């Protein structure tokens, strides 16, 4: 809440009752409670407290207390090993995710534009969506080896579906009037793609990128847990093998933090890039943003 004064009352009759629910100016406590932070803090406290109590009551070797975990996390952040692991893991993440984007956006847009193509490819997209990639890892090792290539491919496989599905949805919901308008000015198919389809699908594509990023983090960790016990996944395996629960959960917390950070960054970029797509009137009914999830 800013300091701008609420509108000056032009007149206040004696004993007026203002409306069905009186719209008082909220007091400082109400305003504090009106913000998100208190609720976030509250849930965090409940969560941390519950964790700590449970761990104290019947903690096992693999279930450390909350405070221990926080201490271990802080200690981990000071260790070179962690930073090396982050570096190693994120290499695969970066390359794999880039691959997913480079492949996924054109594939998705093509699927959205060409109905016929889509009808045939749809079932494979569904298959890709439900296939447990973890089961494929042994095959991948057999065919691609254990080098960086297979890690990159696996990360890409994990994230590409989200990018494809959302790009497709984005292209599908492009206003046909825009395409027709471009044609009326003599645009050819290539121009329609570059000037209409891609920009119009951008919000949905960005959503796909955000979701794909989350999946890519999963892929990165999974491949390290199962195939190449290096990087963050390797750290997890190590601490798990040594039954060092606090740093184990420290690594998990750091992975979660990274995922959240990346996704927030993508969200931020999404908002910057697609400012135009946001409904600027709270009550606008039509432009409620791309219905991306709809077409999965």
């Amino acid at each position, binding site marked *: 809440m800013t300091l701008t004064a609420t509108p000056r009352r032009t007149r206040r009759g004696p004993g007026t009752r203002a409306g069905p629910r009186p719209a008082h100016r909220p007091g400082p406590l109400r305003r504090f409670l009106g913000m998100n932070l208190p609720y976030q803090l509250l849930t965090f406290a409940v969560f941390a407290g519950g964790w700590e109590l449970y761990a104290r009551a019947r903690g096992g070797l693999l279930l450390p207390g909350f405070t221990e975990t926080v201490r271990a996390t802080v200690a981990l952040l000071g260790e070179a090993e962690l930073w090396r692991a982050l570096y190693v893991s994120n290499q695969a993440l970066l390359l794999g995710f880039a691959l997913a984007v480079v492949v996924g956006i054109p594939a998705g847009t093509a699927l959205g534009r060409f109905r016929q193509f889509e009808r045939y490819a749809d079932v494979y997209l569904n298959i890709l969506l439900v296939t447990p990639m973890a089961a494929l890892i042994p095959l991948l090792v057999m065919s691609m080896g254990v080098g960086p290539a297979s890690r990159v491919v696996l990360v890409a496989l994990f994230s590409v579906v989200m990018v494809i599905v959302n790009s497709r949805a984005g292209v599908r919901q492009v206003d046909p009037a825009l395409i027709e308008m471009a044609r009326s000015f003599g645009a050819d198919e290539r121009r329609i793609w570059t000037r209409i389809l891609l920009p119009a699908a951008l919000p949905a594509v960005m959503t796909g990128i955000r979701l794909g990023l989350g999946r890519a983090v*999963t892929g990165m960790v999974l491949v390290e847990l199962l195939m190449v016990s290096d990087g963050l996944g390797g750290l997890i395996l190590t601490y798990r093998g040594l039954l060092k629960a606090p740093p184990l959960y420290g690594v998990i917390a750091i992975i979660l933090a990274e995922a959240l950070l990346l996704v927030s960054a993508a969200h931020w970029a999404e908002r910057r890039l697609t400012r135009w797509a946001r409904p600027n009137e709270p009550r606008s009914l039509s432009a409620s943003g791309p219905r991306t999830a709809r077409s999965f």
Partner: protein
Amino acid sequence: MATLVSLAGGAALWELAGRTADTSSLPPLSQVLGRLAEMTREGTLVGSVGDSLVNLALGLAISLVAGLAVGTAMGRGRRTEAALGVYVHALLTAPSLVFAPVFFSLLGAGRASIVAVVVMYAVFVVIVNTASAVRTVPPHLVEMARSYGASERQVLVRVVLPAAAPLIMAGVRLGVGRAVTGMVNGEMFIAVVGLGRLVTEAGGRFDSAGVLAVLLIVIAVALGALALVQAVDRVVTRWTPTTWKDAR
């Protein structure tokens, strides 16, 4: 129809690639199907599929109930959203498998742990989609109901949930896909049972045909579950296409 044609095409392509590539990592489809028949005959397969399906059904049921409840609460209440939003999004993006030890600690290696993994995989998509579906319900419909004196519960039952149904169903479809993945992963990485066990064993033997055979089953299960959801979806959201056609 197109689906069948393209599946047949894919199968042919696979067979061809498998025969020409001649590496052990990509056996031709016929060999995989042969392996599948063999596994069925041995009797290991049927029991495993049954096991897995029970895990899947339980996990999915919990995910749907919890997902719809939490999602609706988050979509309707700003405070719930504020309180839970960060966690839901963090857990949506997090690699669920790293929580395997937690489930093990809390629930042991029985069915409960695997069901928990399934829920972990599926529930957050359902929550997020339900929340956004509920949030994007046209406000004028809610206002209309209120103008006829609808109570909060009536607004929810008569307006919000029906209007949100299409998007919610989209979330459920995603959730089903994720649940199948969760089922296999839980069975591979906590307690070795069901289809996950078959995959692990085949993988350990470098039996590509075996891995792919089990995978075919998993995919069939997933597509079956998806088809079921889609059928429900069609019933629940029969009204959507007609309005959308005119809404141009």
